[in-house]
């Protein structure tokens, strides 16, 4: 049962990702991106990470994809239908993508902690387990990420407001 669901949504996510890189209209690309995020969220549920799936929907589909569309619309010039001309140097792009994928795969496969478990993971992944880990073992990275986001927020406000020019 879950294998069928996995293949449906994995194919959906990959097809949507294909749509992101190939569609001529950049707004379509952004909407395909949202679809791809939603497909990945279902894969998280199949891995018993419900909390991560809900966060994926809330942050990535609901906010990040929308912000991408926003940025695209605000910076758009000329005709929308030709806004995302297929890049001539797709070969280089594919090369970069494949090497990044190979690098990540290498790291995951060589690190024993990250391998696929022999028996399916049943416990953990709920909100309670996540928060316990975040506030104990991973306290410092969590706080560092929070500080980084605050800095980004303040920077965005300053950029939007404009700094007073010194006389």
């Amino acid at each position, binding site marked *: *049962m879950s294998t069928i669901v996995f293949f449906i949504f994995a194919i959906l996510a990959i097809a949507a990702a294909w749509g992101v890189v190939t569609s001529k*209209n950049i*707004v*379509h690309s952004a*909407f395909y991106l*949202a679809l791809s995020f*939603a497909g990945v969220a279902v894969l998280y549920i199949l891995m018993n990470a*419900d*909390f991560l799936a*809900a*966060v994926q*929907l*809330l942050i990535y*589909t*609901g*906010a990040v*994809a*929308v912000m991408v*569309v*926003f940025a695209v*619309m605000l910076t758009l010039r000329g005709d929308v239908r030709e806004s995302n001309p297929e890049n001539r140097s797709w070969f280089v792009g594919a090369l970069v993508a494949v090497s990044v994928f190979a690098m990540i795969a290498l790291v995951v496969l060589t690190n024993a902690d990250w391998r696929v478990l022999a028996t399916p993971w049943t416990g953990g992944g*709920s*909100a309670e387990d996540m928060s316990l880990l975040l506030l104990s073992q991973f306290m410092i990275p969590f706080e560092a990420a929070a500080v980084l986001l605050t800095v980004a927020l303040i920077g965005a406000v300053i950029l939007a407001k404009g700094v007073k020019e010194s006389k």
Partner: protein
Amino acid sequence: METLYNLFETLNNLFLIIAAFIRGLFADPQSVWANLTMDVIGFIIVVVIIVLAALILILLERKVAGWTSQRPGPNRLGPRGWFQTIADALKLIGKEDVTPAGADKLIFKIAPMMIFCIPMMTLAVIPFGKGLAPANLDLGIFYFVAMSSISTVAFLMAGWGSNNKYSLLGGMRAVAQMVSYEIPLLFSLLGVVMITQSFNLGVIVEAQATIPFIVLQPLAFVIFVIAGMAELNRAPFDLVEADQEVVAGPFTEYTGLRWGLFFLGEYGNMTALSALGATVFLGGWQGPAFLPGYVWFFMKVGVFVFFMMWARWTFPRIRIDHLMHLAWKVLLPLAILNILLTGLGIYIYGFVMGG
């Protein structure tokens, strides 16, 4: 007295008895097929609830509008005009379905379907009575908020796909408003989650057996109602479809049943949000034992909905800079303050009780 009590118990557990009966028809009551059948039945019930709610709420909205502006409202068709909505729905079905020539066809057509799908998904986690949640998720509240955040994408798709500058402006407004108000909405619910230590809506209702959370979290409730009305894009926060400014916003180019889907979606979302408010703050299906739990639940939802309609026809539309000011500089700090006070309260309570 004994028979009366038995009758009441039967009424209270009516749907559970029916569910157990349907499960009993299978050879193995806990098999995959029995679960699948119950899920399909739950889905159908949610859809029926949404459609019925839309039919009733549209009439109620017009009656409330009449009541606030001291006129009778629709009163021609049927007794006291009760059949008006059915006539309106038939009229919408009969209208021509126009897709503008310059529209982005696929996006234009998917957007209303998405908007109508979202209340179906969110209402699935609401416990309509004792043990009557169609899907009893551990992440109940969080799932609800995550799902309703997708409607932003749908509004943007409608605004973009119409290829009309007013629609696009409306869609942009929808995004700015909904992304901003999502944050205080989520934060206002956190206080309750801190007290119950659970996202599960069933557990939250059980925790309110003695006292509803509106008493413990009055500030959070006020923030929830304001941010909820803004999330639904209803007046006084209806900048998305402000007709003097952007015609009808993202809905301008839609006709017939597609426009009807937006309308259904709006009332469905309103029902879902009221159900969430009634569950989290008003005690859900808990209530004095002379009525069954689901009756209490729907009465509380009705009170919530009526309050939203009353506010809609009482207050004028808010200006867009005031809107953003309210979200980021008033509601968000208040919500964070509420979280802080709740944390302090829990700590002091534990200290006093010797925990």
